[in-house]
């Protein structure tokens, strides 16, 4: 008996969902292998006379971290001021605006700094990584590395991953400071609280655990950004258009992964 249109539609739907699911699992697997392989080269590379070059790591750290300082500082300050404005506005309803520092301190350090830093690095450096590796792939540069006996993971991925692991938490700390500082300035102007009093209160409220909460997240975000960028770059096919698609895909996936991971991390860490 010939299938009806409905049956055809259903079969196509499940076929498509199945393919996406399998492709997704494959990508996650590739990402996992990449992380393991990266640490393998980091540890075993020097013994095999194939070390990860410090120069490459520093070059990546400059690109991912140092060059991102102005934009991270600017956005963190804007977020700090925004939190202060909303906090004061909301708490004024209860006449409790003087307690705004609690909300600002927790929100900035535990949530907004790692989140904004992660999203920014994903958009700035994760996409750059995907584009670079994708372009190298279509230009046969990855093949050239392989035939020269240079492992592409050691040469391209490990420096980027290490640079992310160092610089994303650093940028998060910078973001914490800038967010708190900018919020403090606004609170000072709006509520007439001195900066010294504001920072005393912040210090009383925050614990070391709160700071580690944010930094811990940023470490996970760093791995996600690097792995998603590399996996998407390595999957490029079809020339320049393929590079563009992989870059966009990398940014969307990295930001989605950051937000979902943030939620899971927050849930687990507050139990």
């Amino acid at each position, binding site marked *: 008996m010939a299938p009806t249109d409905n049956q055809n539609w259903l079969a196509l739907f499940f076929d498509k969902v199945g393919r996406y699911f399998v492709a997704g699992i494959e990508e996650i697997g590739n990402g996992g292998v990449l992380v393991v392989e990266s640490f393998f080269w980091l540890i075993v590379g020097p013994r095999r006379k194939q070390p990860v070059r410090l120069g490459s790591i520093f070059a990546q750290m400059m690109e991912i971290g140092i060059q991102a300082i102005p934009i991270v500082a600017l956005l963190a300050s804007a977020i700090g001021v925004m939190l202060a404005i909303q906090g004061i506005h909301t708490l004024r309803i209860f006449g409790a605006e003087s307690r705004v520092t609690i909300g600002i301190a927790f929100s900035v350090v535990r949530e907004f700094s790692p989140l904004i830093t992660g999203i920014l690095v994903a958009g700035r450096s994760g996409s750059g990584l995907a584009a670079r590796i994708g*372009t*190298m792939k279509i230009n*046969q*540069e990855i*093949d050239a590395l392989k*035939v020269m*006996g240079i492992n592409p993971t050691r*040469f391209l991925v490990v420096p980027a991953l290490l640079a992310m692991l160092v610089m994303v938490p650093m940028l998060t700390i910078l973001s914490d400071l800038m967010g708190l500082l900018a919020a403090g300035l606004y609170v000072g102007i709006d509520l007439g609280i001195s900066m010294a009093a504001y920072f005393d209160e912040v210090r009383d409220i925050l614990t070391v655990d709160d700071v580690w909460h944010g930094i811990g997240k940023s470490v996970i975000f760093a791995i996600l950004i690097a792995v998603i960028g590399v996996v998407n770059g390595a999957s490029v096919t079809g020339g320049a258009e393929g590079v563009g698609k992989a870059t966009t895909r990398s940014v969307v996936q990295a930001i989605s992964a950051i937000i979902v991971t943030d939620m899971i991390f927050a849930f687990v860490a507050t139990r």
Partner: protein
Amino acid sequence: MAEDKNTEQPAQGPDKAQDKAPGKVIEVDNLVTHYGEREILKGVTLDVRENEIMVIMGGSGSGKSTLLRHLMALEMHTSGTMKILGQDIEKLTAMEMFHLRKKLGVAFQSGALFSSMTVGENIMLPLHEHTDLDPTTREIMARMKLEVVSLAGFENLMPAELSGGMVKRAAFARAIIMDPKILFCDEPSAGLDPVVASALDDLILDMRAAMGMTIVVVTHELESAFKIADRLTILDKGHILMIGTVDEVRKSKNERVQNLLNRMPEDDTIDPDEYLGRLTGEEIGGDATL
């Protein structure tokens, strides 16, 4: 696998004395490879001898680039065996493969120079990664290789600042920086004007003479192939049509070899019903399905 009826076996008469295993740097036996379900190489068997220039020729889709990727150990085959410098690449450990790769040089079709590095840094990269030479020695060696490819003085330029021919020359310089035993060249003269292409052919001959390496060239440029080849391998739809010297290939009676040499398209008779079916997406005489 059954041989193709049109296949001419490797020239054996006068060369038989050389045809001993120690003289062979590449030995491919009944190599079969697939991309997904599609069979690309269908039982390829060939040898490349020490210090010879072997040119692999064939039309588009004949499998020559795929064969080259296998010879460079960039892809693994489905069945058959392949030995490079006496080592069965399927049985090599990662470390053995690493050491083998240091004896191979590749000049890619696009050059594949790293765009973020200068020409000099590109050429020095293998030395930087595989040797303990100090930077000054590396620079001297890079300049020497640039001299060989007539690019002296260009080491501080970025690849984007070079012309197509210069990029290929720089790629040659990088490929020979470790003094490889085998040099692979993928379409060295593709996209170049005849003068520059001819100069590159001369360069390949000079490099063989100066460095005594074995060179495998994939090309579809007849003029270039006849100029540089000691022997040619003619591929067609994943089969080897023939292996022989330039003279043997020129005198071949094989119709498909002659078609390739005379640039004649394959006689492809079109079935009108099938053609109509392809256009409309309908199977003539069957159900109309997508």
